[in-house]
């Protein structure tokens, strides 16, 4: 039996079932669905484009290689974010955290490398002035997130980029719910302070 021609309309759980049956298209579909969210989480954690791409690749290889251990009653996105977050945290433990450069990787050795490693912010799709303001604000918040502790970053990204409720973040990061709330509260306070200091 073959999977439907358009896997894009099928639920994650069904795609996983096809992937478990050995269908390469299903594996690719899972990568297609989650490459941006996973890369975004990892990039904002490690602040280095190439390393983030390597870790994203590791995340998918690990996940697809261990797909049998995935429990269908759990959200696939939570499962893959958990693997990605662990990969990023492991990387940060191995390597001292670098400072964020919105204009590109700190160790970029050429203008091209710097341009390639620069953050690609979402297009606001508004007027040029709005877009410019949004870009400035986007740059400021990216810079501010880069100054947070890694555990705060995970929480903030999962909460505000992926829109996860506190309970799921706690489950995903294997932290008590109160800790997650505290982290997000403190992270927001720190972000506010950084944004205010940038305004001055």
């Amino acid at each position, binding site marked *: 039996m073959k999977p439907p021609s358009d896997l894009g309309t099928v639920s994650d759980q069904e795609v996983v079932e096809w992937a478990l049956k050995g269908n390469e298209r299903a594996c690719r579909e899972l990568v297609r669905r989650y490459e941006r969210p996973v890369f975004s989480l990892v990039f904002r954690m490690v602040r280095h484009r190439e390393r983030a791409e390597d870790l994203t690749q590791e995340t998918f290889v690990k996940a697809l290689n261990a797909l049998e251990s995935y429990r269908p009653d759990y959200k696939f996105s939570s499962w893959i974010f958990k693997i990605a977050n662990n990969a990023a945290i492991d990387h940060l433990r191995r390597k001292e955290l670098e400072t964020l450069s919105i204009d590109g990787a700190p160790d970029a050795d050429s203008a091209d490398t710097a341009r390639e490693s620069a953050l690609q912010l979402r297009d606001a799709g508004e007027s040029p002035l709005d877009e410019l303001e949004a870009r400035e604000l986007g740059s400021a918040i990216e810079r501010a997130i880069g100054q947070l502790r890694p555990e705060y970053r995970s929480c903030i990204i999962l909460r505000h980029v992926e829109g996860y409720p506190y309970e799921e973040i706690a489950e995903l990061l294997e932290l008590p719910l109160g800790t997650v*709330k*505290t982290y997000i509260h403190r992270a927001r306070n720190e972000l506010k302070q950084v944004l205010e200091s940038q305004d001055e």
Partner: protein
Amino acid sequence: MKVRSQNRNWPEEPDERLDQALASLGHLVPSAGLGDAVMARLRSLQAGTRVPIIRPAAAVVRRRWTWVLSGGYALSSAASLALLATFWTQVVQFGTAMGWVTLDGLAAGWHAVVEGVANSAATLALQGLASLELLPLVAGATALAWLSMMISAFGIYRILAHYNVGRKQVHAIR
């Protein structure tokens, strides 16, 4: 202790500017070819080899090159077979025109070869070609035929490998 108990239920205090800034955070875009790189690494695991990180851009380039190589193999195979066919057609036409070989003789020879009989008209025809100092050409054509067969076989192998024909893809991966 009171502070601690309050801490356990921190509300998210709304802040217009901060919320606006956080709302501007979107998904970032990785380099193209991540899927190719992941699948290449999974296949290597399937084959029992451990391949380190593959740069996605390299995976895309490799995929493009696979197409170029497969196309190249197919073209060179076709060209060498066409050359071989042309050569043998010319040999037979020349031999026939000169009366050294006959189509009937070749047909009989082929029939004899098929039946496994060596001393047939084909042998005679080959002897005739040899006596006409065409042996180097015959040897060359044989070598060319061998080479084109090898190129064709390798090209077909590459094309089949590219599409993973005959391979169970994910079961064996894990």
